[in-house]
């Protein structure tokens, strides 16, 4: 992992965010999914809280397993998402780094990351007896269509009315535009940061960006978030100009697909470093970049609909395969790692075919490793490391 000076600023931001969440008396709290249109909430002074982000924190802190076991003992199947199980466990025991999340006033979820979130949030809604607003973002089998954009925009209008009713005051469209621009600015800076991974040697590696992802997920739309990424960008751009790599030696350059394996983040970072392999691009972190590409101030909902319909995992295989192949070229990769995440089915389904096709299109080797983002029982060091070493050897053969 690379030491960035900006990291202390991020820790401060996140600490302040969770402190506010735990102590606020005046702001209503909404639990939201990572792909929810959080700009509506910041515009109305609602504090969004992310169970997924909290589960990731529990995973990285290696405390997810007892929480998962608690959830399973309460009757949740071991086959459901480990973020959901970690969250249920943390909620039941007030466990994890900040002793559980503050109770929600309402819930907002979007189906653009998976369909599990519907059932997950229904469980939470029943427990806390709070309203749940679902933004349904259909899967893009063959790209965006006018119908899909209109369908999603209409739901944003309904969300506006929902918030007005819930808060008993009119929706502030002006403030919303400000938040939207702030969100887009941060998202664009995040993308600029990630694109610096094209530099050889790469000034950061993907394990770093998994950590530095927290503010763009939780705080996008706030000026603090935008300022943070500007700071991080300047530091990384400076490293990039000076040719300072994240690894002392960069023999291989690879892509990481799917979520991180939070409870093995450091071990895997060390493992990749020992083998002089820099992970320079990840589809997961890329998902929060470039949200504002279709921004049109006169029709803000349309651009937002496009952005929230288009995450990588909400799009069809052909798109994914071509996207991966493009990244292999653009980032001068020597190979790619596909993490088949037991918990994240929409991200993992079809991976064998994807590996085959991306290899065929790019002539670069890839490997599939089996793991999980939060459940350590679904992970075996020796099996994964053997497969990764086989990838290194395959990259040697082709170099």
């Amino acid at each position, binding site marked *: 992992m690379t030491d960035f000076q900006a990291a202390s600023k991020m820790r401060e931001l996140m600490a302040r965010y969770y402190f506010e969440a735990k102590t606020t008396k005046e702001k209503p709290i909404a639990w939201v999914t990572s792909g929810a249109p959080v700009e509506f909430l910041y515009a109305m002074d609602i504090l969004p809280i992310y169970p997924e982000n909290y589960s990731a924190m529990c995973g990285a802190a290696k405390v997810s397993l007892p929480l998962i076991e608690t959830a399973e003992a309460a009757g949740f199947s071991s086959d459901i998402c480990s973020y959901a199980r970690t969250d249920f466990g943390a909620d039941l025991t007030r466990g994890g780094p900040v002793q559980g999340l503050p109770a929600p006033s309402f819930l907002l979820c979007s189906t653009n990351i998976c369909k599990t979130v519907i059932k997950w949030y229904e469980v939470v809604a029943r427990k806390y007896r709070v309203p749940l607003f679902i933004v349904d973002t259909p899967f893009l089998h063959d790209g965006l269509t006018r119908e899909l954009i209109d369908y999603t925009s209409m739901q944003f209008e309904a969300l506006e009315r929902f918030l007005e009713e819930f808060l008993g005051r009119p929706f502030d469209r002006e403030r919303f535009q400000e938040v939207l621009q702030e969100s887009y600015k941060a998202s664009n800076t995040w993308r600029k940061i990630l694109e610096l991974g094209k530099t050889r040697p790469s000034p950061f590696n993907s394990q770093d960006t998994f950590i530095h992802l927290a503010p763009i997920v939780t705080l996008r739309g706030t000026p603090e978030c935008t300022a943070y990424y500007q700071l991080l960008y300047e530091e990384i751009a400076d490293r990039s100009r000076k040719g300072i790599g994240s690894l002392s030696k960069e023999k291989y350059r690879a892509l990481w697909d799917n979520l991180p394996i939070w409870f093995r983040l450091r071990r895997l970072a060390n493992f990749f470093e020992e083998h002089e392999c820099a992970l320079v691009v990840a589809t997961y972190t890329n998902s929060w970049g470039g949200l504002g590409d279709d921004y049109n101030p006169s029709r803000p909902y349309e651009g937002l609909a496009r952005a929230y319909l288009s995450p990588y995992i909400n799009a069809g295989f052909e798109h994914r395969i071509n996207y991966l192949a493009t990244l292999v070229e653009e980032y001068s990769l020597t190979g790619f790692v596909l993490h088949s995440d037991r918990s994240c089915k929409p991200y993992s389904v079809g991976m*064998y075919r994807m590996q085959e096709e991306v290899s065929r299109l790019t002539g670069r080797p890839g490997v599939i490793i089996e793991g999980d983002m939060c459940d350590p029982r679904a992970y075996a060091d020796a*099996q994964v490391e*053997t497969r990764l*070493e*086989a990838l290194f050897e*395959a990259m040697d*053969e082709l170099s």
Partner: protein
Amino acid sequence: MNWYAGIDVGSLTADAVLIDEEANVVGFAIIPTSYDSMAAGSEAYRLALERAGVLEDEVSGVVSTGYSRARVQEAQVARTEISCHARGAFHIFSDVATIIDIGGQDSKAIRVGPGGRVLDFAMNDKCAAGTGRFLEVMAGALGISLPDMADLALASTVEITISSTCTVFAESEVVSLISQGRAPADIASAICRAIAQRTAGLAARVGISDRVVMTGGVAKNQAVVRMLADKLGFGISVPEEPQITGALGAALIARANSAS
């Protein structure tokens, strides 16, 4: 004279191979890994040296492979089983195009190009079904030895199917077949067919072409080899000692490294 060694410490057996400058095998050993993989690797190496009449000091290079490859103290370099099986199989059959290796914990299919270069490979998912461990557990359930399993399976007259792909569930399925009074030969055959089926699916992922070589301990099971050949529609060549292919490949890599 220079000697080179390969030590393959896997989940079930530790194998060592010693070769001379011309890449002739001059000694080898196969022993169970048991709980102390480091000691097993050393012991297999010691036995191979003893059988060849070579002293450890006379060995110019040692490469390790297998699950405990990083823990083999005698080795200067560790390589994965993929590279080692490809190298070993290519040495024995220079026209090899597809390698299927079923080891104790992993099964893999490797597509090799000219010179034994690895073009593509696929490995089993984390489940142990279809591996050597699966076969061992099933032999245990039937109360027979591994070598007997193949002979028994080849004597089968009635085709029955084990539907479960999970080792644990398949074991209970075998137990219930026994209690139904099904013939042990037919059960053994069903077990071998289950492995062949799973392995054929894995091999299809890398694309199969002639010549197909099977390595690893399970290649000793004639019934599995025959059923797999039927499924693939290709003949399968098996080295005389399929289990030591990985260690042989490691020794060949040690020899190549010292030349470069």
